[in-house]
């Protein structure tokens, strides 16, 4: 089991060189997609390999020349990788413009760099039915752009096939995730996020079979779960959460049984419906994802009976439904949408009487030692 997990982690850490290898072996083309919500199935249906772009956690040297330093780590990290030439093997890049930072910095990419394929997509910020017609047009526009780039028609059959493949990936990821609810502690959280992320940077066909084997092997494990406080870790909107923090939480005696990470529940919780027109189905899918701090849920704000935070409701319900004792909020520095929602999320957790703590993460986060004190203090508080 650990062997497979290590293999997937290695794959993730070598993600940029793996692209070159894949291209050499297959002669195929690769499109880099920025987090989050990009319709990878369309890219796949056009005969291309979609890979999610994760920036490095390393020091930022080149990007600071071009971007203000109070942009989030995810944005600056990916930009740094671009400037370092790590994305040179990509045949194109694409992004859903999920926030102001992604929007503007991605546009900057296109000014100084030549990409064979460059696509900006708009996902409505109003998550309700009134946005559906425009969203549908955006999906059709993506489809035509990919068809033009590849010369391949994205037929409904092909798109349905890709959707089924990706649905299978999501359902396998969910099965893996369920293991940490039924057998807390068997899978380390830091292994799991990387194992999920590996699925976002390699061909799904290959990944799905690895994941099946991994799930089988977990059944053979004789690991016994002890009595440890169960926590949910939230936040860190679209980057890869720091391995060290997740490990620290689990080393200090808690077990992480849920998250809302992009490299976690946010990616695999919902499937694309398989019936009817696949483009229409995809629009429904994008309007039906788990709540996100970046988006607006109009129905909550028009009437009198409003919730503090649709996202907070989601978190609180998840905690209650899964017998979780507390929430650890990871806050990526300079993520404006999350920082604003955070104020309401905290109140929501207080209202629902859910113990929580916040850890700042990212390039300017405090030392691991301070984090250790916070986590220890928090777990002592939970176990009292």
């Amino acid at each position: 089991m650990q062997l497979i997990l290590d293999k997937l982690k290695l794959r993730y850490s070598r993600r940029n060189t793996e692209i070159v290898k894949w291209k050499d072996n297959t002669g195929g083309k690769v499109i880099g997609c920025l987090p989050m919500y990009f319709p990878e199935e369309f890219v796949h249906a056009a005969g291309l390999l979609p890979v999610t772009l994760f920036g490095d956690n390393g020091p930022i040297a080149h990007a600071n020349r071009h971007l203000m330093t109070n942009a989030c780590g995810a944005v600056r990290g990916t930009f740094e990788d671009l400037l370092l030439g790590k994305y040179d093997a990509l045949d194109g890049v694409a992004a859903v413009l999920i926030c102001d930072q992604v929007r503007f910095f991605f546009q900057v990419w296109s000014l100084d760099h030549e990409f064979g394929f460059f696509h900006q997509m708009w996902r409505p910020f109003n998550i309700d039915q009134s946005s559906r017609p425009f969203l549908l047009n955006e999906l059709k526009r993506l489809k035509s752009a990919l068809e033009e780039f590849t010369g391949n028609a994205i037929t409904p059959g092909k798109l349905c096939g890709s959707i089924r493949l990706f649905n299978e990936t999501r359902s396998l990821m969910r099965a893996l995730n369920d293991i940490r609810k039924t057998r807390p502690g068997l899978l380390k959280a830091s292994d799991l996020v990387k194992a999920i992320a590996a699925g976002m940077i390699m061909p799904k066909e290959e990944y799905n079979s690895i994941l099946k084997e991994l799930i089988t092997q977990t059944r053979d494990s004789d690991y016994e779960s002890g009595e440890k406080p169960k926590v949910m870790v939230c936040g860190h909107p679209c980057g890869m959460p720091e391995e060290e923090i997740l490990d620290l939480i689990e080393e200090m005696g808690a077990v992480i049984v849920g998250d809302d990470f992009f490299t976690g529940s946010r990616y695999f919780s919902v499937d694309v419906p398989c019936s009817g027109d696949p483009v229409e189905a995809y629009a429904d899918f994008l309007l039906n994802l788990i709540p996100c701090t970046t988006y607006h849920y109009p129905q909550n704000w028009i009437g009198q009976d409003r919730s503090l935070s649709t996202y907070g409701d989601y978190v609180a319900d998840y905690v209650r439904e899964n017998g979780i004792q507390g929430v650890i909020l990871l806050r990526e520095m300079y993520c404006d949408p999350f920082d604003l929602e955070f104020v309401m999320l905290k109140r929501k957790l207080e209202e629902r009487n859910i113990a929580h703590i916040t850890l700042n993460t990212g390039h300017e986060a405090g030392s691991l030692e301070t984090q250790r004190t916070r986590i220890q203090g928090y777990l002592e508080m939970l176990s009292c």
Partner: protein
Amino acid sequence: MGTQAKIGNRLESQNRLGKLIADHYQEAREIKESGRKPIVWTTTAAPNEILWAMDFCVLFPEAYAATCGARHAAYRHCKITEDKGYEHHLCTYCRNGLGSTLADIEGLDPFDPLPAPDLLLVANNSCSLITKWWEHLSHYWNVPLIHIDTPYIIPGVPEKDVIGHIKHQIGDLIRFLEEFTGKKFDHDRLREVVKNGSESAKGYTDMMKMNKHNPAPSTYFDLMPHNFPNLVLRYKPEVADHYRLMKQEMNERIREGIVPFENMKYRVYWDGIPYWFAMRFLSKKLQSLGICLVTSAYSQLFAFDRSDPERPLDSVAENTAYFYLNRDVRYKAEYTEQLYRDYDLEAGIFAYAMTCKPFSITMHYIADYVQKKLGVLSTIIEGDLVDDTFFDEEKTGIRLETFAEALESNKPSVGKTVF
């Protein structure tokens, strides 16, 4: 130009502007007391003509933030939000607005607070954070919030679709407002509002263009506050007069060879939202260095130049869609370059606002772009919209002095003129 030039007194239009602003807030307070109209808080480029046509009292928290900044009151409002758990690096327009709201609700003595809203309208064409800001207002005031979700103008997206999507939402907004007020929407009144708006917009644009003249009759900082009438009051017919009279005044200056200050040497572009708390410091500093700020793309935010009484609904939707901040980076870079050409500018000061990402993220790129295209000097200074904790007078002063020395030597060093 030079030392013989006559130096202008304060423009009479500045006094008129002061009165327009004071009257607007006075009227709003009176409306709140009498309750004769519902009050709505809105954003700069939401389809506000719809609100005026429905006879709402329409208030702008962003304009209020600028006022609080200029009056050195924003810091206190921002501090209140920090005590409530809002991060220091979040937009200070937003924190000012939430801080004054919290102060108002909790009896903490906010600075000249806006009368409480009955309804909130927000458009995300300026940034995506603003929607969250308005959500928090909706929570604190417990009033309904309508969000106009504005797709970006980006390559490949058919602009008619963008406008269509906005128009569709304006239709929903009108239906909501009819229910909210119990009144039928009056399309004739809308046409009249848009007509006043189009005249005001034209007056505003014409007035701003007077600075194309060399020497400039005014500094940009003198003109900048005059976006207020076109933003907040353009539904009124008298606003066009304000700009007409102002243009006259500037014309007189040009005729008589009057300049705004002594020893004007350089025609310089300003990029970004002004640092409202530091206007006096910056004006004095720039004048002492002979730098005359001439214009800025910032003013384009308040142009509303699509207004057309022949096509009221469409033109309102177009103003929302084509709002400057809803444009992509390439458009902004090219627009800026064109301003340099039209206004014969020789350098630029780019003002980072540390908490405003839409303005600041791409600023370096735009500065680089015009430098490459035109071989002009640029400098970037750091500060913020209304919170002076991000601003260092000493540091900024030194940077501007160095900039002026570089202008003096008039030899942009090859390759790296942005410093």
